[in-house]
C-alpha cells in the first residue's frame, strides 16, 4: 500500500501541495488528474523521495519512503533526465545496473514496439521519441508501484495507443499503477480510481464504478465539473 499522510509542500511562499492525504491499494489503476501546475508532479516526486515534503509523509508498506522503497517503485518523470552522453542502449544498461527488477529482454521488446534503435543518442531524440524511451525503460521494470507522470505528453495518436498498451500490460493484482495526465478521456478506459488535484488540494477521489453508480457521472463529467472555467469559480451576481 502507498499512503500519503497530510502532505504539504511549500516553495518559499508558494504552496504547491496543501495537506493532501490518500491511500492507494495494489491491483488498482489510479489516474491523477488536473491541469498543469496543480501539484501532480510534486506529489509524484514526493512519493518516490525526489522531493522532500515540508510537512506530512509518504509511506510505502507502512515505512517512510527511502532508497530501499525505490527498489519497488518505478517513476517516470515528465522531463527528460538521461545523461547527455547516453544512447538508448546505455540507458537500458544503467537501469540494469541499478534495478534488480529490470528486464533487458523486455526493454528490447519495448524499444522495438516504440520503433527506437539502441544506437540512438538521447540528446538527439525528439520529445516524442524521448517520451517513448522513458516509458520503455520504466515499464521494463517489474515494479510493485509505477508512477507515470504525463506519459502521453507530446505523443501522436498512434504512439499513444502503443503507450497505453504498454501501461496496461503492467496491470497485475500486486501492482499499484498511477498515471498523471490532463488527458482524462484517454485514461478513462484503464482507470479504476481517479484523484482530482486542484491548486495543490485533493478536490475529489472517486472509484470509476462508484462514481457512475452513485452519481451517474463518468470521470470526464466530474473533471468538467471540477475544472470547468479553467478551474476558476463561476461568476456570481
Amino acid at each position, binding site marked *: 500500500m502507498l499512503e500519503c499522510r497530510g502532505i504539504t509542500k511549500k516553495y518559499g511562499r508558494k504552496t504547491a501541495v496543501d495537506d493532501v492525504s490518500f491511500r492507494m491499494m495494489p491491483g488498482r489503476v489510479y489516474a491523477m488528474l488536473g491541469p498543469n501546475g496543480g501539484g501532480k508532479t510534486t506529489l509524484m516526486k514526493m512519493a518516490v523521495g525526489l522531493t*522532500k515534503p515540508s510537512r506530512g509523509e509518504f509511506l510505502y508498506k507502512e515505512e517512510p519512503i527511502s532508497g530501499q522503497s525505490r527498489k519497488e517503485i518505478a517513476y517516470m518523470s515528465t522531463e527528460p*533526465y538521461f545523461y547527455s552522453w547516453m544512447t538508448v542502449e546505455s540507458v537500458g544498461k544503467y537501469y540494469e*545496473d541499478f*534495478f534488480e527488477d529490470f528486464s533487458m529482454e523486455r526493454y528490447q521488446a519495448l524499444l522495438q514496439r516504440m520503433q527506437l534503435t539502441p544506437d540512438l543518442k538521447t540528446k538527439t531524440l525528439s520529445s516524442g521519441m524521448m517520451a517513448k524511451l522513458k516509458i520503455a525503460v520504466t515499464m521494463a521494470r517489474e515494479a510493485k508501484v509505477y508512477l507515470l507522470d504525463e506519459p502521453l505528453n507530446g505523443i501522436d495518436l498512434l504512439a499513444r495507443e502503443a503507450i497505453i498498451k504498454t501501461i496496461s500490460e503492467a496491470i497485475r493484482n500486486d501492482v499499484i499503477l498511477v498515471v498523471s495526465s490532463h488527458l482524462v478521456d484517454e485514461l478513462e478506459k484503464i482507470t479504476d480510481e481517479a484523484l482530482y488535484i486542484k491548486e495543490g488540494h485533493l478536490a475529489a477521489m472517486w472509484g470509476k464504478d462508484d462514481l457512475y453508480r452513485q452519481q451517474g457521472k463518468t470521470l470526464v463529467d466530474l473533471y468538467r465539473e471540477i475544472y470547468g472555467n479553467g478551474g476558476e469559480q463561476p461568476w456570481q451576481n
Partner: protein
Amino acid sequence: MAKLMKYEFRKTMFSKFILLMVTAMAEIILLFGIFMEWENGLAAGSIGLFFCAMFGIMYMGVESLITFHRDLSTKQSYMLFLTPKSSFQILGAKVVENALSIFLTGLFFALLAAIDLSVSLIRIGGLDELLELIKSIAREFSLNPDIPWQDLLLSFLALLASWLMMIAMGYLAIVLAATVFSGKRLSGVISLIIYLLLNWGVSYLLSCLPDMNTMLQNSLMRIGAAFVVVAIFYLFTGWIMERKLSV
C-alpha cells in the same frame, strides 16, 4: 557503490582523456630531449609533465565539485536519486571516486617520473650526471633541487588530504545552497561565504594541533586529522541531503 562509482568515473572521462593526451605530448617532447640530447626539449618536457601532474590533480577536484553541482541543479539529478541508493552512498561514491582518481593520477605521474628517470639513466649514462642535469634545470626555474624523497612523499599525501578536505567542504557548501538556502536570493554567495568560513575555521583548528617530536609524526598527525575532517563533513553533508534535499 561500485556501480555508482563507475558512472561517476564516466562523467569525468573526457577531461581525464584530455589530460592523458597533453601528458603524452609532454612525454614525447621529454623523450626527444633525452634521446636527441636536446636540453630545451628536456626542460620543456619536464616542466610540461610537472604542470600536467599539478593542474591535472587540482582540476579533478574542481571538476568533481562542478559535476556535483550539475547533479543537484539539473534534471540529470534523477539519474542518481531515482536509484535505490541512499544519499550517503551517492555522496560516498563521489568522494571515493574523486579520492581514487586523484591518488591514481598521482601514482601514474610518479611511475611516469620513475620510468623517465630510468630511461635517462640508461641513455645519459650515470645517476650523478642525471641528477646534476635535473638540479641545473630546477635552479634555472628557481626551484629547490635538494628535496628529500621522504618529504616529497609526505607532501604528496598532505596535498591529497588537504585537497580532499577542500572538496568535502565544497560538497557541503553546494548542498547547503541546494537545501537550506534553496530559492533564496544570493544563495550562491551565501554558500561561498560559508565555504570560506569553514575553510578558515578548519585551518585554524588544524593549526591548534600540538607539535610532535619529529617532522614525520607531525605530518602524519596532520594528514590523519585532515581525513577525520573529511569524514565529518561527509557525514554531515549526507545527513542534510537525506532529510532536506529536493531535486
